[in-house]
C-alpha cells in the first residue's frame, strides 16, 4: 500500500528526467588553413649559429652537420662585420652545385608561385598581396634577375636575420 502511494511521484520524476536534460549537439566546421607566423612576431635576432644552420637548410634542403656548424660559427666570429661574413658564405653556397634552387626558366614559367615559394622558404610565411605584386612586377620587368639573385636578397635581408 505504501508503495502504491509513492508511484505517482516516481512517474513524475521519470517524466521530468526524460524532458529536462535534452542536449543539442552542434558541429561547427572551419576551412582548413596553414598557421604561419607573420613578420610582426619576429623580434629576436638569430645568433650566427642559428642563422647559418637555417640558411644551409634553406639552400641545400638538408641539415648542416654539428661539426660544420661549429666551424662556420668560428669563421663568422673571425670577421667583425657580420654582413660581410654572411654575404661571403652565401655567395659561396650559391655557387655550389648542390644548392637547391629553381632554374630561371622555372621561375619565369610561374613567377607568382616562385614568389610564394621563396617567401615560404626564407620567411616561413606567405607574402602579403602587396609583396607578391611588387615581386611579380619586378621580376617580370627585369629579365636579367635570376633566382640566385632573389635568394641572395632574401638571405641577406633584415627579416631573415630575425625569428
Amino acid at each position, binding site marked *: 500500500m505504501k508503495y502504491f502511494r509513492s508511484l505517482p511521484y516516481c512517474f513524475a520524476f521519470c517524466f521530468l528526467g526524460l524532458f529536462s536534460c535534452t542536449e543539442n549537439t552542434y558541429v561547427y566546421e572551419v576551412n582548413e588553413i596553414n598557421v604561419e607566423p607573420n613578420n610582426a612576431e619576429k623580434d629576436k635576432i638569430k645568433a650566427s649559429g642559428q642563422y647559418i644552420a637555417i640558411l644551409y637548410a634553406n639552400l641545400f634542403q638538408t641539415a648542416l652537420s654539428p661539426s660544420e656548424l661549429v666551424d*662556420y660559427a*668560428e*669563421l663568422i666570429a673571425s670577421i*667583425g662585420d657580420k654582413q660581410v661574413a654572411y654575404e661571403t658564405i652565401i655567395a659561396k653556397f*650559391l655557387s655550389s652545385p648542390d644548392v637547391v634552387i629553381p632554374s630561371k626558366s622555372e621561375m619565369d614559367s610561374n613567377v607568382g608561385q616562385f614568389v610564394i615559394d621563396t617567401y615560404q622558404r626564407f620567411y616561413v610565411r606567405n607574402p602579403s598581396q602587396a609583396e607578391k605584386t611588387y615581386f611579380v612586377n619586378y621580376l617580370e620587368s627585369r629579365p636579367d634577375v635570376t633566382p640566385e639573385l632573389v635568394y641572395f636578397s632574401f638571405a*641577406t635581408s633584415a627579416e631573415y636575420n630575425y625569428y
Partner: protein
Amino acid sequence: MKRRNFIKKAALATAGTIGVPYILPSGRLFASTAAAMSEHVVLVLFAGGVRNQETVYQRYLAESQGLNIEGNILYNMLSGDAPELKIVYGTQSAGGQPGGTPIDQILSTPLDKQGTLFPEMRYTGSYTGHYTGLSNALSGYYETSQGLQSRPLHPTIFEYLRRHAGMKATDTWFIGNSISSSTPLLNYSAHRDYGSDYAANFFAPTVTFGQLGDKYIKGFKTYHPEEELDPVREMRAFLDQAFLRDGRSIPNLNNTEAEIADIKAFIKNVFDRLDNDQVAFPPVADNGDLKTIGFAAEVMRWFKPRLTVVNMSSADSCHGSFTNYLGSLHRGDHGIGFLWDFIQNQTEMAGKTTMLVMPEHGRNYTPNAITDENDWVSFDHDSDENSRRIFSMMVGPGIDGNLRVGSESNPIGDAADITPTIADIFGIKNQVMNAGLVAPGAMSLFDRI
C-alpha cells in the same frame, strides 16, 4: 692696409672654424679637433702577460731561473747585447739545438733609439686578466667586473675616433690573433652613446684566412657591382623597408656598401696572395703572433687605416714553459721590427705613422710549480706587484728619440694611458677626456713626459 685687414679677417675666420663644431656629412656633430700629430697610428699589444725583467731590463735567465745570464732578446725594440749562453729563443737550424739560432735583426736602429721608452709603467686598476687588460688598453678604463663573453662597458678608442674624429669604419681595424678569450668582442663597447655604430672592423686572420676560411669561403663568388648587386640592393631595400620600420635593426659596423665591397675584395685578394706566397709575412712566421702580424700588414697595405691595433698573445705560454715564453718574446720583437720596417716601405704611411707597443699586463715575480724541458720554472699572472709592471714605447713623427721616461725606481705611466695617448695623437684628446669615461688619473703619455 687692405692686405693686412684681409689676413686679419682670414686668421679670425680660421680660428673660428677651428673652435666651432660642425656637422659631418654623416649627420653627426663633429667637435673641432686639435692638429693631429700623425696620420696613422699602429698599436701593437705585446700581450699574453710580459715581464719587465725579460724585456726592458734584459735579465734573460737572471731574475727567473737563478742563472747569472743576462742579455737582450728584443734587439729590434731595445738597445743591448744578446745573451751569450743558453740560447733557446731562436729557431732551430739543421743539426742545431732547438731555438739555438736567434732570428736576424731587422731594424738597424732599435726602436728605443728612434722613439721614447716608458720602461716602468703600472697596471693599477683591476686584476691582471688578459681580456680585462686588453679591454683597458683599448678603452682606457679598468673594468673591475669585466667578464668574458661581454663587450667592454666603456667606449673603445675605435669608437672615440669614429665618433669624434669622423673616421669611417675601414679607417679603424682591430686584428686579433684568435677568436678565443672573447677577443672579437673588443672592436666596440656596449656603451649606449657609442657602440656598434662606431665600431672598428675586425679580423682574426689566422681563422679567416686559415683552414676554416680556406674550406668555407675561399673562392666565393663575386657579383657584378651594377648588373647583379644593383637588383639585389633594390629587392633588399623593398624587403627591409617595412620590416625595419617597426623599430627593428641589425647591429652593424656602419660600413658603407662601398666599404663592404672593398672588404670582400680584400678577402679575395688575400686568398690569392696566399696562393702565390705573396702575403707580407715576417721573415720568420712560425707562430700565430707572427702570422697575425703578416695579415695585419696586408690590412695596412690595402686599407691604409688611420688606426690599426694588432694583438699578440703567445707569451702566455709562460704558464707552462719559460722556454716557449722566451721564444715568443723574441718573435714578438721580430714581428714588431718587421711591422715598423713594412710601414716605412708604404708610401702613404712612411713618415706619417706613429707606432705604440705595450703589453696588456705583466706576470708574477714568483714562479708556479711547473717546469719545462730545460727544467726552468714558469710564471702565472695573479695580480701580484710584478704582474702590474709593464712598459710602453712609441715611435713616429714628432716623438723624441732615445728618450727614457721613468725608471725601475720611478714608475711613470699607466696602462690606461694608451687610449688618451692615441686620442692625443689624432687631436681629439679633449673630447675623449671630456666624455669622462676613461679611468680616473689616465692621461696622455705625452703629458707625462
